[in-house]
């Protein structure tokens, strides 16, 4: 460094300092070596082992070599470490014993004595050997001898205190070696000296610190001592250690302050409690603020001075350590800490002074950091600096408010005085920043100088802070600053600028459910909206605030009045409606229907009672409360409602609405859950695990920007529904708390009514609850009255009195006294009314209606049952009878069809015995009932005088059981030729066998029928004769069958048909006979049928002979002999039949179709139509037709006759047929 000759500056407190090493002896020699030495010394680091377990450090040593002077040696008590010479070196080149003895030894002794006197033990003697010199002087002693002498004389067992440096200025390996050894020794010695001296210093320092409880101990003194140590460390470039010293001082002081606050005050501390007179902020641009240091040294520093100085030192060291961000962090802590400490120490501070100090300090720190970092570094470390930015903003804001710079009118004289005072406390700008345009000092001064300048600076800072907070995702902090900014704008009467910040902040608070910030921000927002004239928004915010329990009663009332006064003011301008959400005005708690099942019939009255919990702090008169109802026609709505009710109906028909616990908790943005999956990646070769991890598969969902979600508190866009169906209640005064409001409505159209919106009108303001949830419905059903008529039994039987039930379902109709049903019945049906016939009304749980005639139950009845008795008249089998009923609820008649079943089936048959005729009537009881039959009559309605019907019946009454039959027989007698047909009417009285006495005569049961062709025309007689010579017929042997057909009458009307031929004055007709043995008893041999021409004259007889063979033995019935009319083919009777009735004599098959079923209609007409159906193979040829003779016209005289057949004798085979 400097040449040793240069005068030593007194103390240099910069890091340019180096530990002092004194040089004694040959100055010229040292001067020649110095360049090499100063260059070589720091080249290699040396390990410095520390005391007190501190970690060893590698250290590059440098030294300030100065000429030895006795004054340099510290006197007792001087603790200055920076000026402390750590090592004393004596340089000599002496190689001559004589010279040594003459001068060097004395000089050395003197040097040593001085050192001893100052008890300095850190010394070194360097002997420089020079080959050149050696060569010059021949009488030279071996060089070791001089060194040995010196060692012997001075080093006294510390031979290593004397070092040899050979040929230092040469460039040889020996020189190098020698240098290395020397440097090592020098370094070691230096470090040893450091260790020893610093250790001693530290011990002293500690001792001093331990005395801090003693009276008279001064922190400032101690501060200077420890700072000395810090300086040394700094000098040794051990910044960490230096910082530790300051941190210790910092902590010590802080502890004292805290203790002071706790009542444990130290005397010296009272000095720091002097009022703050200067607040010029931190000074960080100089490594050491000598001014402040001197104040501390003189014990005149204030707390702010001390703190400022301390921090400036810490800052310097931290910057040396490349830790600018820690500076920022510590600065923030310091600034807050100082404010706290001043408060704790109860130091009097002029208002605004601290704000100035903090503001200046923040900016100073920021500028200092900016000065040593590039832009990119700063940008990526905003998190560290933003705190200072917002703190500065905060402080500038409070200064502005304090000095009247924010008010509209600008600062008043008092404010101006304050500003002057504050500026005075800043003092003059320091020279180091005087030339900087944007120095904190200038900024503050400018900001305080005018309203405009303040605004500019404040906005700059605020925007910077907001931007920074936002850029690092501290949205909440950004909102917080923004809210202050909004407040500022409001003061500056720029509500439009404030609004966005307030909305932003409010949104955030709402989203996270912080009640008090919400209230506070809303209050500001209300003011803002009021200024902006956003009526709707303002009213909405007001209503929210009026219902906000975090506000005082008075504030709430104020906002409530705001709404009311708006409402009353606006009444003159109709049409304009302000729609606000209801929930902040009042809350719907519950709803109750009467009737509780919420089902009414058309015309019925439904009442809806709601509990509305008013959120307002005072009674509010509401002109109208309306519930908007959506009407929908649905089928089966009644059933649906019943279903719905069973599901949703609470007990007693009350629907509770969930209370909106506004504003907490607020629904959160529903982020999807993390979808995490394990991921393994294996190497394809050996399947060993390469990497593993977790993948989030829905990152895109989770990391989506949330900001742009819709605002939580815009004017809500509540749409006011205009529906035709509205439940209204007018003139309601809502008291704070629960209010019950009842709506009444008369049900009109049937259908489902869904309550949709609840709307309370206060002047033009509509508080609307847009959706009622859970959904509430009521149903209106229109059940038209219904009449049902049904038999009491399974079915109605014709002919007997039975009871029929009339069921009147009144539906919505109310039965009034005197209401009656008028029945208009068909003639065939009688209605029997008993004296006691009165409608009995069965009450059936439903809504009240006035009762019918017999008993008034006091309840209207929807489904009463009226019973009547009725007699059903006589009619045919299952027919409908219509009854027309006039009901009081309808102008139309109700026509009801009743179905009656006829209990009897009646058949008749004609029986013959030769020419005597009998009519048999069979009455079959098909019903389940038993009947009595009486007075069976058969009459000829035409009253044919020639005919007589002679009854052959048992005495009446006759009992006819269920499912049984009774027969009646009459003999038909006539005097003249009988008519071809006879009409008959059968009548019989019937009454239920078990049915007591009947008050009315029952009409008899009648059955009309017609008997035709009942007169016997032909007598057929068959006879089988055994073969001649035998007494009996034998099986297998032919017997003769004699058939004689005898005409019993002359020409009659019935004979006049196509078969009748007239020739030679007599008539004949063609008949076909046929012998058929259906039971296969006989084998007819030869022709079994034939056509004969029969004269139409009485006693005309035709005989036919044929052979038959009995096939079995026993009494065999005779084969049937059938007789047909043989009609010519051209008969127009039925052309269709022609085609089908080809008859062959052989194998003739005849189907006789005689309708044996009782003919349902018309009274027993016996249609004699029959036809033969042939095989149908022969078509197209005109064929004669056969017509069976009606059974009444043919009498088979041999019916029932049997012939004994005996088995043939030579029967060898016994046939057994088993069926």
């Amino acid at each position: 460094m400097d040449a040793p000759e240069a005068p030593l500056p007194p103390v240099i407190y910069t890091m340019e300092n180096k530990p002092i090493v004194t040089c004694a002896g040959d100055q010229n020699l040292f001067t020649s070596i110095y360049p090499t030495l100063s260059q070589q010394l720091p080249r290699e680091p040396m390990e410095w082992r520390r005391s007190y377990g501190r970690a060893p450090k590698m250290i590059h040593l440098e030294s300030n070599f100065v000429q030895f002077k006795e004054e340099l040696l510290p006197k007792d008590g001087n603790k200055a470490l920076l000026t402390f010479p750590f090592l004393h070196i004596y340089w000599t080149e002496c190689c001559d014993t004589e010279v040594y003895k003459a001068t060097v030894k004395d000089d050395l002794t003197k040097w040593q004595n001085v050192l001893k006197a100052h008890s300095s033990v850190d010394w070194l003697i360097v002997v420089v050997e020079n080959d050149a010199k050696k060569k010059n002087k021949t009488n030279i002693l071996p060089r070791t001898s001089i060194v040995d002498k010196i060692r012997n004389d001075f080093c006294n067992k510390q031979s290593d205190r004397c070092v040899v440096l050979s040929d230092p200025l040469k460039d040889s390996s020996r020189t190098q070696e020698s240098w290395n050894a020397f440097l090592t020794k020098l370094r070691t010695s230096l470090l040893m000296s450091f260790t020893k001296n610093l250790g001693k210093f530290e011990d002293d320092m500690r001792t001093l610190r331990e005395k801090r409880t003693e009276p008279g101990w001064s922190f400032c003194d101690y501060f200077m001592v420890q700072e000395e140590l810090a300086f040394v460390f700094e000098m040794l470039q051990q910044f960490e250690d230096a910082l530790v010293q300051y941190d210790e001082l910092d902590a010590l002081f802080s502890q004292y302050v805290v203790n002071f606050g706790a009542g444990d005050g130290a005397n010296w501390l009272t000095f720091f409690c002097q009022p703050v007179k200067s607040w010029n902020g931190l000074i960080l641009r100089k490594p050491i603020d000598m001014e402040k240091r001197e104040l501390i040294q003189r014990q005149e520093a204030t707390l702010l001075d001390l703190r400022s100085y301390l921090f400036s030192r810490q800052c310097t060291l931290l910057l040396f350590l490349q830790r600018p961000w820690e500076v920022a962090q510590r600065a923030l802590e310091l600034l807050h800490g100082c404010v706290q400490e001043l408060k704790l120490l109860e130091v009097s501070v002029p208002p605004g002074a601290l704000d100035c100090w903090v503001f200046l300090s923040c900016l100073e720190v920021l500028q200092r950091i900016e000065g040593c970092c590039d832009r990119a570094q700063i940008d990526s470390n905003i998190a560290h600096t933003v705190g200072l930015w917002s703190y500065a903003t905060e402080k500038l804001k409070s200064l502005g408010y304090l000095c009247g710079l924010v008010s509209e009118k600008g600062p008043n004289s008092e404010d101006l005085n304050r500003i002057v005072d504050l500026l005075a406390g800043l003092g003059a700008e320091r020279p180091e920043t005087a030339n900087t345009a944007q120095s904190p000092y200038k900024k503050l001064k400018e900001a305080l100088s005018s309203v405009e300048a303040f605004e500019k600076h404040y906005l700059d800072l605020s925007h910077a802070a907001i931007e920074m907070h936002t850029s690092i995702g501290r949205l909440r902090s950004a909102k917080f600053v923004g809210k202050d900014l909004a407040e500022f704008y409001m003061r500056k009467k720029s509500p439009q600028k404030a609004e966005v910040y307030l909305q932003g902040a409010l949104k955030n608070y709402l989203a996270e459910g912080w009640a008090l910030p919400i209230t506070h921000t809303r209050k500001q927002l209300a003011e803002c909206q009021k200024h902006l004239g956003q009526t709707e928004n303002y009213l909405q915010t007001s209503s929210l605030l009026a219902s906000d329990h975090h506000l005082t009663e008075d504030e709430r009332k104020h906002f409530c009045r705001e709404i009311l006064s708006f409402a009353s003011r606006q009444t003159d301008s109709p049409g304009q409606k302000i729609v606000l959400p209801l929930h902040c005005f009042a809350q719907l708690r519950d709803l109750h229907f009467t009737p509780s099942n919420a089902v009414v019939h058309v015309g019925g009255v439904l009442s809806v009672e709601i509990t509305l919990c008013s959120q307002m702090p005072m009674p509010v008169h509401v002109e109208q409360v309306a519930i908007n109802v959506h009407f929908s026609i649905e089928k089966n709505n009644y059933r649906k409602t019943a279903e719905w009710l069973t599901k949703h109906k609470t007990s007693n028909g009350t629907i509770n609405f969930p209370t909106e616990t506004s504003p907490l908790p607020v629904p959160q943005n529903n982020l999807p859950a993390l979808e995490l999956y394990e991921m393994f990646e294996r190497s394809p070769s050996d399947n060993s695990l390469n990497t593993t991890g977790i993948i989030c598969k829905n990152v895109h969902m989770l990391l989506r920007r949330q900001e742009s979600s819709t605002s939580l508190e815009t004017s809500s866009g509540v749409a006011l529904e205009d529906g035709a169906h509205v439940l209204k209640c007018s003139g309601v005064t809502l008291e704070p708390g629960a209010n019950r409001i009842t709506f009444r409505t008369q049900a009109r159209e049937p259908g489902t009514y869904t309550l949709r919106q609840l709307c309370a009108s206060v002047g033009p303001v509509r508080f609307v609850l847009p959706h009622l949830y859970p959904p509430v419905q009521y149903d209106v059903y229109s059940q038209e009255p219904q009449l049902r008529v049904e038999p009491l039994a399974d079915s109605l039987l014709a002919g007997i009195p039975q009871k029929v039930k009339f069921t009147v379902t009144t539906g919505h109709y109310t039965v009034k006294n005197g209401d009656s049903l008028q029945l208009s019945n068909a003639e065939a049906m009688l209605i029997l009314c008993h004296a006691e016939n009165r409608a009995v009304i069965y009450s059936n749980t439903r809504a009240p209606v006035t009762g019918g005639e017999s008993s008034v139950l006091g309840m209207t009845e929807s489904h009463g049952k009226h019973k009547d008795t009725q007699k059903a008249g006589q009619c045919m089998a299952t027919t409908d009878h219509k009854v027309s009923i006039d009901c009081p609820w309808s102008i139309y008649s109700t026509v009801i069809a009743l179905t009656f079943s006829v209990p009897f089936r009646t058949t008749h048959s004609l029986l013959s015995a030769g020419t005597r005729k009998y009519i048999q009537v069979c009455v079959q009881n098909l019903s389940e009932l038993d009947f009595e039959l009486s007075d069976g009559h058969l009459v000829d309605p035409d009253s044919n005088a020639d005919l007589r019907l002679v009854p052959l019946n048992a005495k009446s009454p006759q009992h006819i059981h269920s499912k049984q039959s009774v027969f009646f027989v009459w003999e038909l007698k006539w005097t003249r030729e009988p008519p071809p047909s006879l009409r008959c009417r059968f009548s019989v009285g019937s009454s239920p066998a078990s049915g007591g006495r009947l008050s009315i005569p029952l009409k008899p049961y009648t059955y009309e029928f017609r008997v035709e062709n009942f007169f016997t025309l032909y007598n057929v007689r068959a006879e089988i004769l055994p073969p001649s010579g035998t007494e009996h017929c034998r099986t297998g042997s032919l017997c003769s069958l004699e058939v004689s057909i005898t005409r019993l009458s002359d020409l009659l009307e019935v004979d006049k048909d196509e078969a009748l031929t007239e020739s030679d004055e007599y008539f004949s007709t063609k008949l076909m006979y046929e012998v058929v043995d259906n039971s296969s008893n006989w084998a007819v041999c030869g022709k079994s049928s034939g056509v004969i021409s029969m004269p139409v004259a009485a006693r005309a007889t035709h005989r036919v002979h044929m052979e038959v063979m009995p096939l079995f033995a026993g009494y065999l019935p005779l084969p049937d002999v059938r007789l047909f009319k043989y009609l010519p083919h051209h008969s127009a009777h039925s052309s269709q039949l022609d085609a089908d009735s080809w008859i062959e004599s052989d194998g003739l098959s005849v189907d006789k179709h005689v309708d044996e079923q009782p003919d349902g209609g018309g009274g027993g007409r016996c249609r004699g139509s029959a036809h033969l159906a042939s095989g149908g193979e022969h078509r197209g040829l005109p064929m004669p037709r056969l017509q069976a003779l009606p059974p009444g016209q043919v009498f088979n005289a041999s019916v029932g006759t049997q012939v004994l057949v005996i088995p043939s004798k030579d029967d060898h085979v016994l046939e057994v047929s088993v069926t």
Partner: protein
Amino acid sequence: MSGSFYFVIVGHHDHPVFEMEFLPAGKPESKDHHHHLNQFLAHAALDHIDENMWLSDNMYLKTVDKFNEWLVSAFVTAEHMRCIILHETRKKKNFFTGFYDLYRKFAMNPFYEAISPIPSNAFDRKVQFLGKKHLLS
């Protein structure tokens, strides 16, 4: 306002779950002007807590934020419930430790739905007691 504390537990959705103010004995409640400020500060401090909790192994995060004379200390439970104290001086670790003990037990109550507001009076009383013990003494 000096000498009082504000304590809040913040749930997963950043909403306050439990709040309590501790006022030094004898001092009447000052103007309620500050109540909202407490919440403002605690809310803004969430930014810092959310950053700091990932930088530390400890549940106790020390002082995470400052506002004027206010210090904001935080403690994050294992289930990431953020507990915040607003205070003026001294560290609040002991209170947090005591509180966490209490909260753990409370959170294990099967009838308590995690992160929902804590309506329990008993919990209230116990926290009050802790506050008296660690904060106000």
